[in-house]
């Protein structure tokens, strides 16, 4: 990951600030940075979203393609994740430089999102054992300033909300064969139920306290962080310790509690925002990168 160099004095300043619940940019320990969300930004996709979290900037595009279900789960579709750590974000990612981080991110996203508790995978089935929808979720990192997981999870939830899968019908042919018919009407489509899609909250342990939405500078001061994915009901679906340092069990417990509280509060405003944007329909002025 993109890293920043930080001196001992700066480190002390950040740690003391966190102790007093006042961070370098004036936030409290449980506050997120200014966040901007916009959906439907890339017209070549079935669903897309762009999320800006402080200086962190991610773009998610979802394409739905017809594929073959996995043999173990014949009546379910599935999601594929790919994270492109492009050189745009930082020159360190040039060539194969971003591959390691990309794989780490996409594997975690796969664990968090591609299960039937998060997304109704059965609704992606077209005909059991033969055809299903595969949602290719492609994440593009455009700028990194810490807290990639949270930004990506919000972007994925927004993009899934925005995803419109064309309606298909299975027609039986006379010789017993089956054929998939695509609806002619481009507005005739199904939506993905995003109600149970979790959001990820990453907590960074700094000194004796922990903070959410750490910037790169703050991350450089922390020993380790904890990733928690929480649904709108406050259900924890995934916990993961990240980073080189170690955490004691007690602080993991505290961090999980904070994560649950913060994560649960994240969903309602997000859904409200997405629904509001949706209700504007085609009248909405698209801002994208031009704003």
């Amino acid at each position, binding site marked *: 990951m993109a890293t920043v160099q930080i001196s001992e004095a700066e480190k002390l300043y950040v740690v003391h600030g966190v102790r007093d619940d006042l961070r370098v940019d004036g936030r409290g320990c449980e506050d997120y940075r200014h966040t901007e969300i916009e959906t439907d930004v890339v017209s*070549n996709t079935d669903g897309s979203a762009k999320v800006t979290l402080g200086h962190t900037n991610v773009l998610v595009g979802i394409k739905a393609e017809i594929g073959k279900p996995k043999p173990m789960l014949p009546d379910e579709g599935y999601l594929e994740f790919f994270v492109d750590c492009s050189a745009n974000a930082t020159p360190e990612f040039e060539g194969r430089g971003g591959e390691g981080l990309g794989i780490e991110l996409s594997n975690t996203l796969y664990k968090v999102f591609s299960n039937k508790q998060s997304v109704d995978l059965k609704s992606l089935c077209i005909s059991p054992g033969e055809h299903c929808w595969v949602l290719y979720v492609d994440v593009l990192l455009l700028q990194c300033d810490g807290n990639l997981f949270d930004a990506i999870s919000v972007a994925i939830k927004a993009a899934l909300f925005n995803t419109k899968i064309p309606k298909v019908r299975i027609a039986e042919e006379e010789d017993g064969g089956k054929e998939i018919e695509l609806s002619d009407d481009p507005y005739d489509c199904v939506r993905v139920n995003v109600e149970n899609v979790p959001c990820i909250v990453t907590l960074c342990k700094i000194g004796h306290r922990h903070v959410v939405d750490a910037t790169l500078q703050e991350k450089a001061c922390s020993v380790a962080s904890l990733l928690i994915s929480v649904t709108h009901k406050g259900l924890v679906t995934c916990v993961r310790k990240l980073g080189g340092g170690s955490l004691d069990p007690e602080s993991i417990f505290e961090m999980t509690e904070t994560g649950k509280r913060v994560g649960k509060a994240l969903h309602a405003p997000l859904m409200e925002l997405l629904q509001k944007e949706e209700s504007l329909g085609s009248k909405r002025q698209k801002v994208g990168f031009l704003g």
Partner: protein
Amino acid sequence: MAGLELLSDQGYRLDGRKSTELRKIQARMGVFDQADGSAYLEQGRTIALAVVYGPHDVRGSRAKIQHDRAVINCQYSMATFSTAERKRRPHGDRKSTEMSLHLKETFEAAILTHLYPRSQIDIYVKILQSDGGNYSACVNAATLAVIDAGIPMRDYVCACTVGFVDDTPLADMNHAEESGGGTNLALALLPRGGQIALLQMDARLHQDHLDTLMEAAMTACKGVSKVLDEVVRQHLQETVILTGE
């Protein structure tokens, strides 16, 4: 030409443009704060994002260092969702490598590299949405990003693709026109001096038509340069107002 009629009898193209008409270009400079220079450019439905880092010390092998000028390092990549059919990898395939090389050559011709000996300038371009004319969108976006980074250039580099259908040159082709399989000429121009930074033509063309085609491409590039100039001036004006000078 078989299949689609690219140019109607009335002289209109598939998307309703006249033969010399460019697609709508919208651009913004300084989209990202962390990079030294960045720009976003929409050319019709083709969207490109360019980021510039540098000039800085040469990274990696010391053998790359040029003692009399800066090294230009370009990377072209396409978002996996940018095309109608999903791409499996964003960069590293032959087409992207070739495109990176073309971009490098184009900008070596435009940037005053001798001002920064023993250093390196990185230009990274990403296609977010592809609808034909990827090379030209990349060059135009990268020009704005280089200007945003404050790196001196001889002139704007403006690029445009031109096709040739029914004895008529078609400026700024979109994907449907490009995939028709006809002649396709890509030109990068330094408009003030009329210098050509890159010229590439695919498919065959009668030599008699080459002049017409080149002429059309140069006119189109000059049109692009006007738009880019407008964007730069507007950006400067906004910055001046914001900094209160």
